[in-house]
C-alpha cells in the first residue's frame, strides 16, 4: 500500500487515538463498560491496522512474533502470580483483600494487576492470530 497517501495519513492520525481508547477501556473498566479482554482486542485492532496499512515487515520490526509470545506468557504469569499471592497471604485464590494496607486498596490493586495481565495476553494473542494467518497464506503462495 505504497501510494494510498490519504489512507496512510488518516491511519497515522487514528492509531494513537485507538491505542489511547484501548488504554481508557483498560483502566476505566471498573466504572464503565470494558475490562482487560475488550481493551486487549481494541489495542490489537490498532496494531493490526498498522500492519495492514504499512506492511507486515514494518509491523514485525515493532513487535516481533517472539516478543508477542513472551508478552503473552508474561500476562498469564502476572495473573497466576496475583492469584497465588492471595493464597500465600492467607486467603483464597484471587482474593485481593490482603494485597495492600486496607482491603479496598487491595481490591483496587488486585483487579488492576489481573486486568493488566488479561489485557496483555489478549492483545498479544490477537496479534499472533493475525501473524499466523499471514504465515499460512504466505506458505500457500
Amino acid at each position, binding site marked *: *500500500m505504497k501510494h494510498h497517501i490519504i*489512507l496512510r495519513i488518516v491511519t497515522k492520525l*487514528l492509531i494513537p487515538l*485507538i491505542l489511547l*481508547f484501548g488504554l481508557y*477501556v483498560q483502566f476505566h473498566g471498573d466504572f*464503565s*463498560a*470494558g475490562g482487560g479482554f*475488550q481493551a486487549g482486542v*481494541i489495542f490489537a*485492532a490498532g496494531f*493490526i*491496522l498498522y500492519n*495492514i*496499512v504499512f506492511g507486515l515487515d514494518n509491523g514485525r520490526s515493532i513487535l516481533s512474533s517472539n516478543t508477542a509470545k513472551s508478552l503473552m506468557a508474561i500476562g498469564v504469569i502476572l495473573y497466576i502470580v496475583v492469584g497465588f499471592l492471595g493464597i500465600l497471604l492467607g486467603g483464597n485464590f484471587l482474593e485481593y483483600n490482603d494485597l495492600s494496607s486496607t482491603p479496598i486498596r487491595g481490591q483496587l490493586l488486585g483487579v488492576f494487576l489481573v486486568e493488566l495481565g488479561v489485557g496483555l495476553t489478549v492483545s498479544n494473542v490477537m496479534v499472533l492470530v493475525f501473524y499466523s494467518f499471514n504465515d499460512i497464506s504466505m506458505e500457500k503462495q
Partner: protein
Amino acid sequence: MSEISILAIFILSIALIISIFRFITANEIYTKILVVNLIGTKIVLLILLVGTVSIEKDFTDIALVYALINFISTIVILKYYEDKEATK
C-alpha cells in the same frame, strides 16, 4: 428532547432500510462495500441516539468501538479485493 431523539431514531431506521435495499440491488462490489460503510455509520448514530433516550453513558464507548471496527473492516475488505485484482 427525548421525543426528537425518538423521531430521529425512526428516520434513521427508514434510511437504514433504504440502504439495505440499495445493498441488495447493487451489482458492483465497490458499491456494496460503500453501502456497508454507510450502514455502519448509521448504526453508530443509532447507538448514540438510543444512548441519549435511555440515559446510558456507556453507549458512547460502544459507538466508538463500532466506528473503529467499521473503519478497519472496510480497509481490510478493500485491501483483499485490491490484492485479488493484482494477482489476476
